[in-house]
């Protein structure tokens, strides 16, 4: 579980996060949604420790991030898996080497054990024939799956995903969403996903945090999002006719 308490973050005169407090639960897919410029990415990067908050605290299962020393922070980061928007795979490494990287860096496992684990996670993300390919030789959807495999290979406690569906076709998007949800539930991971893909919200939104202008404007589940009367979220989620009709159908039962 990740508990965020009153986080504030400014860049120069611009205050991006204005006192956000929320809880991201373990074993659930926690989604951060909001318009561009609402502070989603800054919140995610603050959770990851890439940005230091100006005030407020972030607790990883009771461990206050700002109270940890440099080594403890690095140690904590080995418990984190991250799927970047552009996958961020290492260009010079093959798919298998990318996935094996965290194991080579942080475990004393021998080659055979690492290979066994890499084979297992690549099979788990339905990539059995791509071991020796370079990231440039596979499609965007496959790159995302490799990034997920790399993020989970070390059995992380926390999984962060930044726009995991951006640039993917609807089929692959659904595949990635389902994969993330299955992995989250299977390994009881605290998963935080930054997205503005409404399909993902409807598909896997077990705990949704809606940001508006740096403030938490709403929080709830995908079922609650159908019934909410909150004007901001209704305007944001149901901006397309398709989702308006989905909502009407849901409310009619």
């Amino acid at each position, binding site marked *: 579980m990740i508990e965020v308490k009153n986080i504030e973050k400014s860049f120069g005169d611009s205050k991006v996060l204005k006192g956000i407090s929320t809880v991201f639960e373990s074993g659930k897919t926690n989604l951060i949604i909001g318009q561009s410029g609402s502070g989603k990415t800054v919140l995610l990067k603050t959770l*990851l*420790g*890439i940005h230091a908050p100006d005030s407020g605290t972030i607790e990883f299962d009771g461990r206050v991030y700002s109270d940890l020393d440099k*080594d403890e922070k*690095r*140690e*904590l*980061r*080995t418990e*984190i898996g*991250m799927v*970047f*928007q*552009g996958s*961020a*795979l*290492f*260009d010079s490494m093959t798919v298998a080497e990318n996935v094996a*990287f*965290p194991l*080579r*860096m*942080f475990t004393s496992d021998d080659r055979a054990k690492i290979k066994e684990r890499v084979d297992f996670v690549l099979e788990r993300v339905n990539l059995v024939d791509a071991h020796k390919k370079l990231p440039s030789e596979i499609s965007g959807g496959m790159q995302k799956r490799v990034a997920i495999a790399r993020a989970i290979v070390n059995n992380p406690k926390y999984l*962060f995903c930044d726009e995991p569906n951006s640039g993917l076709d609807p089929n692959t998007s659904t595949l990635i969403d389902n994969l993330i949800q299955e992995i989250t539930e299977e390994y009881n991971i605290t998963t935080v996903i930054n997205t503005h893909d409404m399909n993902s919200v409807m598909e896997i939104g077990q705990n949704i945090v809606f940001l508006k202008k740096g403030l938490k404007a709403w929080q709830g589940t995908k079922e609650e999002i159908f019934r909410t009367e909150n004007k901001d979220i209704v305007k944001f989620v149901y901006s397309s006719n398709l989702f308006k009709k989905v909502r009407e159908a849901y409310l009619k039962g």
Partner: protein
Amino acid sequence: MLIRYLSQVGKYFLMLKEIFNKQTKWPVMKSLILKEIDDLIIDSLGIVCFISFFIGGVVAIQTALNLTNPLIPKYLIGFATRQSVILEFAPTFISVIMAGKMGSYITSSIGTMRVTEQIDALEVMGVNSLNYLVFPKIIALLMYPFVIGISMFLGIFGGWLASAYGGFSTSQDFISGAQWEFIPFHITYAFIKTLIFAMLLATIPSFHGYYMKGGALEVGKASTVSFVWTSVCIILFNYILTQLLLG
């Protein structure tokens, strides 16, 4: 403006400190060092050999053409070529060229990793990205004096060929000149400079790549800025070291 430069210098020294913190596991580091030796040292040999051989030849020809007084002995062509190549051409001129070749490679490869979030990925995993990316380059460039040694040899060899076979002096005169008044400390001086330049070549381009902001266009700009600053630092350190060691 001055404060901005000073802050950059401070940031550079903090980066140097961080490079030596929390070392990457040796089996991983070993493969990174070998890869950097291949990319930075072995891949540079071709261009270094080509330039050294021909510039050595040109130095010999230029010297010969300027020695118009018949009272000046021809062996001075060999002497001047040796001194020019060992003292300045091989360590300094080649390093400035390497600031363009190795430097732009280092800045663009690290800068691209920054733009594509690969450095963020390393940091999020708990890897000391500066140690992972820059330390192997520093170790690989400890072999840089080997490149400069080859450059010295080929520069003098090119001078000898141009001089002897171009009809500017006899082979014997050139070889006598190349051995005349030889001071072994000049070699030491050249290699001390080379090691300092190697450190600059590994770290200044890394600094510009690591701390760059923006997209693909900025990677190109960072490479150019890195080349300018690496060259400026090499020239400045060349002056300081010459004053300290020979002055």
